[in-house]
């Protein structure tokens, strides 16, 4: 169950670090589901609720839903991370201006297909994106910023 702090980072399309000094988050929201494609709709729905809290526009909410879906896909689909664990762990950290999402699962040593549609669509949707594999855990981290944050 221990989820290590990620170190191997292979992609980031923004300079700023995740969870940096800009704003403290309270308790994270965690959603843990069986590592099965049929639970991703539930995870998307949780992401929508949190995006709405952040004051995302409709377009940004649509993008967040898709981004979280694609991140889950990197852990659940063939040709991506080789997930061996029975659970998909989703963690949402809320900041005043952004939502940081980490999706992780126990996996054998592997990597997502960064030339595939999934990674490429995901990259275009979020402000920060990275994957890592360490100590038996595969993880995808993304950050979605609110352009017109209300809170």
């Amino acid at each position: 169950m221990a989820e290590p702090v990620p170190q191997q980072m292979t992609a980031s399309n923004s300079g700023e670090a995740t969870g940096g000094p800009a704003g403290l988050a309270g308790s994270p929201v965690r959603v843990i589901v069986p590592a099965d494609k049929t639970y991703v709709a539930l995870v998307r729905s949780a992401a929508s609720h949190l995006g709405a809290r952040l004051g995302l526009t409709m377009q940004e909410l649509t993008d967040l839903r898709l981004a979280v879906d694609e991140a889950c896909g990197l852990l659940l689909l063939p040709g991506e991370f080789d997930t061996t664990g029975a659970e998909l762990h989703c963690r949402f950290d809320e900041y005043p201006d952004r939502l940081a999402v980490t999706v992780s699962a126990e996996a054998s040593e592997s990597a997502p297909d960064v030339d595939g549609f999934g990674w490429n669509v995901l990259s275009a949707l979020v402000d920060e994106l990275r994957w890592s594999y360490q100590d038996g855990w595969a993880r995808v981290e993304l950050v979605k910023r609110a352009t017109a944050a209300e809170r």
Partner: protein
Amino acid sequence: MDGLQVSTAVVDDARSVVSLSGELDMATADLLWAELEPVLQPGRTVVLDCARLEFMDSTGMRVLLRASRRADEVGGAFQMTAVPPPVERVLALAGVTSEIPRG
């Protein structure tokens, strides 16, 4: 409301309309392929009505690309119609907007 509903109407010998409602994602993409594959026939145009499609991800999109390829291979046609903006967006982000004709 979760999930995908697929209904297929045979308009005439040369034309089928497959209508989607709900969410085309990694959990429902196989269902769509199972419905599309039998109707992708020589000389037949298959129109995918997306008016009530609320969500599509890259896994769903791959089924559309596969259908388009299959139609080309067998000498049929595959078209999309009434494509909502969030669905267009996935095609655009993946750079495949022009690969599927609109009906």
